Each structure stands twice: as C-alpha cells, then as structure tokens.
C-alpha cells in the first residue's frame, strides 16, 4: 500500500517535475492508500460455475440495463464457438465441453483490485472507484487504447466504427450499486450462480463451498490471486484451463510491472542534469566554458 503511495508521489515528480504540486499530490496519495486498504470490502461477485445453467438471462439483463442491443438469440451456435464480450455486449456466457461434461462460464470485466487499465490510463478515464467497479469516463478519454494493450484479460473494447468512439466494458452497474441495488446480471440470475457481496465475504463463502463439497469443485478460486486479485471470483468443477481462462497470469498486480521503471524516473530527472552539467564543465578546455554555445562558432575553425 505504501508502495502505491510512493509511486503516485514519484509520478507527480516525474510527470510534471513541479515541486510545488507535491503538497496536494501527497494528499491524493493517501486517498489511494485508503482505497487500496478497503479492497477487501469492495463490491465483488462470486460466479459458481457448478450452478450456472447457461440460460443467458444475465446477457439480456445487462443489455437492458445499459441500453445495449439485444443479444442474438437465434443462434445456439453462440454456444459452439467461444465468444468474447465486445463493445455491444458486455457479458457473454460460453459453453465448454470439459472433462466433467458441459460447463457454462459467464465472462465480463474482472474488476481487478489494482487494474492494469486504470494504471495505464494517462487521463484517469478508466478509474477504479472506491466502491470497487472499474468505470470509464467519456470526458477524460483520449482513445489511445493503452488500456487494451495493458489489460491481462483483454477486456476494454473500442468502437472502431465511430467518429466519437468509446471504450466499452462491464462497469459492474456502478450507478445501480450506488443506489443500493445489485448489478443487473446478479439480480436477474435465476439459478443462483451469481452472488453479490464484498470481496472478503465472497472469498470466505467460496472457501466454505470448496471445503463442504471437495468433489464438486477444483481447489482454486479464480480471481483470488490472479493479476493480484480481482473483484469477480470464480468457482469451477474443472481446472480453469479447460474453460479458456488464462492461468499463466501474474500473481501480483500488473501495475507492479512498471514500478521499477517509474521509480527510476525521478532519479534520472535529478541525476542526469547534474551529471551532464558536471561532465560539460569537467571536459571543457581551459577557460572555454564560455564558448559560444550554439550551432556554429563565431570564430576559429574546427579542431
């Protein structure tokens, strides 16, 4: 947590190189500490894949709640090939043939505890809210798509065929959450596969389920450690590889990968000018430090 505050501070120095901004920055940094400290209390959803029946009611509820086009029902083909959430459909349910038969898996933004997309965003258009959801803000976004490059789950989607493109993804119904409601998908789920709660509650619940029915579940809560922890947690009857989940992700938060680089930035900003100026003075020939310091010397030839 402290590291994060340090990072923010460094960022302040690095980006603007403005010393005067330090005061207000460190206050912001403390907010960040507080936010991270509350991570376990943030909103989260547990997906129990042993319960999901693949009815796709969540897809419909999501579309309705956000004014997205209705999912294409005509196709049970959508169960044949793996689909990905896209700019017009923020959650999809896929069917997987596994070693234990048919398993359905709902996919959407994982709402990381320390999201790579938000760390990558140079305008804070993608924002980890104190409540937990990672949201996108139109008035900030430049459309650089660095979030898409950085997200380990390839979640943010871009409207490539719009003159005013948006980054689209699940926002965990942030507005509904703030009115005390559950996310639309959770509320609509008829089978009880989705449970809404705080992250720590749900981790406890997930562990209990594994302990109570060790034969029903693999001993792995996906999202507990993946990418440093995510807001969406999964229980599965089969190893997650069989469901196309990436199991090779870092156990630490992705922003940690740029920590060393960002730490070195203020060091370079301070040390380089001093060293360069010193070198220049040290290598100057006698009484020459006042030479005409631009393109062509006014007198004298080349050595």
């Amino acid at each position: 947590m402290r590291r994060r505050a340090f990072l923010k501070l460094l960022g302040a120095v690095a980006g603007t190189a403005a010393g005067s901004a330090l005061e207000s920055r460190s206050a912001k940094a403390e907010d960040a500490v507080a936010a991270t400290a509350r991570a376990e209390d943030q909103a989260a959803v547990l997906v129990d894949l042993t319960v999901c029946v693949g009815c796709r009611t969540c897809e419909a509820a999501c579309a309705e709640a956000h004014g997205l086009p209705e999912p294409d029902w005509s196709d049970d083909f959508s169960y044949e090939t793996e689909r990905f959430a896209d700019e017009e459909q923020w959650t999809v349910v896929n069917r997987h043939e596994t070693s234990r038969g048919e398993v359905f898996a709902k996919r959407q933004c994982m709402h990381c505890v320390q999201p790579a997309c938000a760390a990558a965003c140079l305008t804070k258009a993608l924002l980890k809210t104190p409540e937990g959801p990672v949201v996108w803000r139109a008035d900030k976004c430049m459309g650089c798509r660095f979030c898409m490059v950085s997200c380990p789950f390839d979640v943010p989607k871009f409207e490539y065929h719009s003159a005013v493109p948006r980054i689209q993804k699940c926002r965990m119904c942030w507005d509904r959450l703030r009115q005390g409601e559950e996310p639309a998908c959770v509320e609509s789920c008829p089978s009880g596969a989705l449970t809404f709660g705080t992250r720590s509650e749900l981790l406890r619940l997930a562990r209990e389920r594994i302990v109570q029915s060790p034969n029903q579940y693999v001993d792995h809560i996906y999202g507990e450690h993946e990418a440093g922890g995510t807001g969406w947690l999964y229980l599965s009857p089969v190893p997650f590889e069989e469901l196309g989940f990436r199991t090779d992700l870092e156990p630490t938060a992705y922003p940690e990968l740029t920590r060393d680089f960002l730490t070195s930035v203020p060091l370079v900003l301070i040390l380089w000018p001093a060293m360069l100026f010193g070198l220049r003075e040290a290598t100057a020939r006698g009484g020459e430090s006042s030479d005409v310091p631009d393109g062509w010397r006014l007198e004298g030839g080349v050595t």
Partner: protein
Amino acid sequence: MNAVIATSSATAAGPSVSRKPGERLGAYLRRELRPKGPLLTPFNVVSALLILATVVILVVRFVYGLGSVTNLDQRFPWGLWIGFDVLTGVAFAGGAYILTFLVYILHVEKYRPIVRVTVLNGFLAYVFYAGALLIDLGRPWNVVNPILGNDFGLTSVLFLVAWHFLLYMTAELVELSPAIAEWLGWQRVRKVLGALTVGAVIFGITLSTLHQSGLGALYLMAKPKIHPLWYTELLPVLFFVSSIFAGLSMVIFEGSLTRRVFQHRAGKELARSHDAIVIGLSKICAGVLFAYLGLKVVAFLHDQSWHYLSGGWGAWYLFEVLGLTALPMVLFVVGARRGWLGTLRIAALVTMIGVAVNRLNVSTIAFKWYEAGHYVPSWMELVVTGGILCAEIWVFRWVMLRMPVLGPQDAGTERANEGGDEAASPAQA
C-alpha cells in the same frame, strides 16, 4: 531515393543567403516562402499524390472511425502507426540527443558540423511521427487532458511519454532556434537564444533517456501478450540503448543522402570532416551494439528461453539478433578499421532495419503471437505512413534550402561562404 530527391532540389540551388541587414522582413519572407526550384519533379509528383491520398484517408478516418481505414481490431489495438511511426520513428530520431551530448557536453568539436541538421531531423521526426499519434487517437480532442486536465494519470507510463514528447519538442526547437534567428537576420535575438542552448541540451538528453526507455516500458504490463523471446523486464533499457545506434545509424545514412542533395548548402567544415564523422559515429555504433547484444544475452539467459529457440519464432528471433544486430556490428567494426565508407553505410542501413524489426516485433508481430488471424496493416495505413514521411521530407527540404543548417550561410555573421556555395552548386547540377 536520394537521386529522386536530388533531382528536385539540386537545380534549386538558388543563391540563398540569409536576410541582409536592412532588408524588409515581409518582403524577405515572401521571397523565402516561394519554392526554390522546379515543381514538377518525379519526387514532388509522387509525394504530392501520396500526401493527397493521406489527406483523403484521414478525412474518412475522422468521419467513419479508425476501423474504416485500419486493420486494427479488439485484439490488436495498436498497429503500424504506433509500432512504426511512433516507436521506430522516435528511435531513429535519437541521433539528436547523442550528438548534442557529444558536442555540447563532451566538447567533441569533430561532430559540430552535423549537430544542426541532426537536431532539425530529430525535431521534424518528433513533430511528424509523434504527431502521427494524434491520428491514431480515438478521441483526439481530449489530447489536452493529460496536459491541462485536472486528472493526471500519474501511474501511467504513457503520461510520462506524452509529457516528454511535448517538452522534448520544445527543447529541440530551442536548440534549433539560433538557426531560425540567423535566417531571419535577428542578430540580437540569436544571441539570447544561443545562450539557452546548453540548458535545452541538458534537459533534452535527460528527457530522451526517459522517453526512449519509456516507449519500452509501455509494454511491461503486456507481459502475457508478448512472445517470451521478446518480453523482458529489460525492455526499457533495451529501447534506450538501441535508440543510440538507431539514431546514429540514421545520422550516417541520412547524412550520406543530405550531403549529396544539399551539397551546395554545406559549410566548408562539413565538407572537410564528413568522412571522419562517419567513421567516428560508426565506432560508437559498434560499441553500443556490442553492449546491446550483451543485454540481449542477459535477458535471454535470465528468462531461460532456450526451448523457444526451436521453431519459427526462434528462427525469427535469431534473425533479428544475429542478422540485423550482430552482423551490422561486425560491419561497423570492419568498415571503421579499414575506412570503408560504403560498408559503414550498409551497416547503418541494416542496423536501422534491425531496430524497425525489433520495434514491430514487440508492438505487433510477436504481440499476441498466439492469436490466429494476426494483424497486418491495411494499404491505407501504409499510404498514411508514406504520406507523413513525404510531408516531413518536404518540410526538411524547405528548411535546408533556407536556413543555415549544414554550415554558416550568413555572410554578415561569418567568414563568407561564397566559395563553398558556388563551387558546389555547378558540380551538383
């Protein structure tokens, strides 16, 4: 290509002397703004068509969205415009900070004659290629947000890179400004601007260190997406170190073109010392390439990537490292020892290709290497890249034919250059 450009400008060797004291500025500018030389040359026609096509494509792009002209998709958000125009273009522009380091920090006078042209090249590269970023932005009207907006994404490497691009362009403009003042005949302004040069140089070298490495750091979080042979924690260091030989190779390569095309604009000092400069820069390239290869070995051993070496990706990796990095290093060593300038130019060209391939590997080719149906740029992306390059050459030529970039042009300031000017021009025509 140099022959093509040469035909357009060689005959354009109008007697161009900077503004004389007493000459009215307005009249002078009107005279200077006119093209110098024939307009209907093959290079001009082809480049004008490319630029026109670029404009049309960009109109379509801004009306119908990026997807209407590029092959980018949800899996490949960054393509040729970032991988080549920005990543490679900025590496190639690295010569400016290296040469200002040699001349203003280490006082190596040998390289002074090419400082201005290198800084001009670097400045234009940033303006045009970093400018290419703007056309790649989905919501470019928000580009001021990281600069003026109250929400600074301080944890973003791109935030750092954006600020550094902006500040570095300013620093390079300051470094270049004495030439502009000389062109306009503003003696006193020039003195003031000249006094700012060293500060701008020190600031510029610092910024370059950080944003050259920052471009590599952009990909640190893309760890699960980049082929393990190319992903390493050392990406920022590798990008920085390779920008040194990328920039210097560009200086060598471009210098051999410039010298022929703009020979009549070259000062005596440059004419005399050109070969020694090329050999000196080649030695630096060889040394830095050697260090870079060492870092590559460290990264390779650290990540224990042996098993990736078999198969197509391994072969492609070895081609980049051995064929496009180790080979030009050997060529630089041999060429510099024997004084073979032709060999050195080939070494510079191969080095540049190697850096371009490396940047494209990290950003597009080995990015999502596991995906079927990989990103390949559309013809329109290629045309825009070509059009931007042509536009840059036009501006470069315009400046070269007017401002004292390759050597002192101002008879009022310096020992007159008439001899050099007139002796060179006929030889060119």
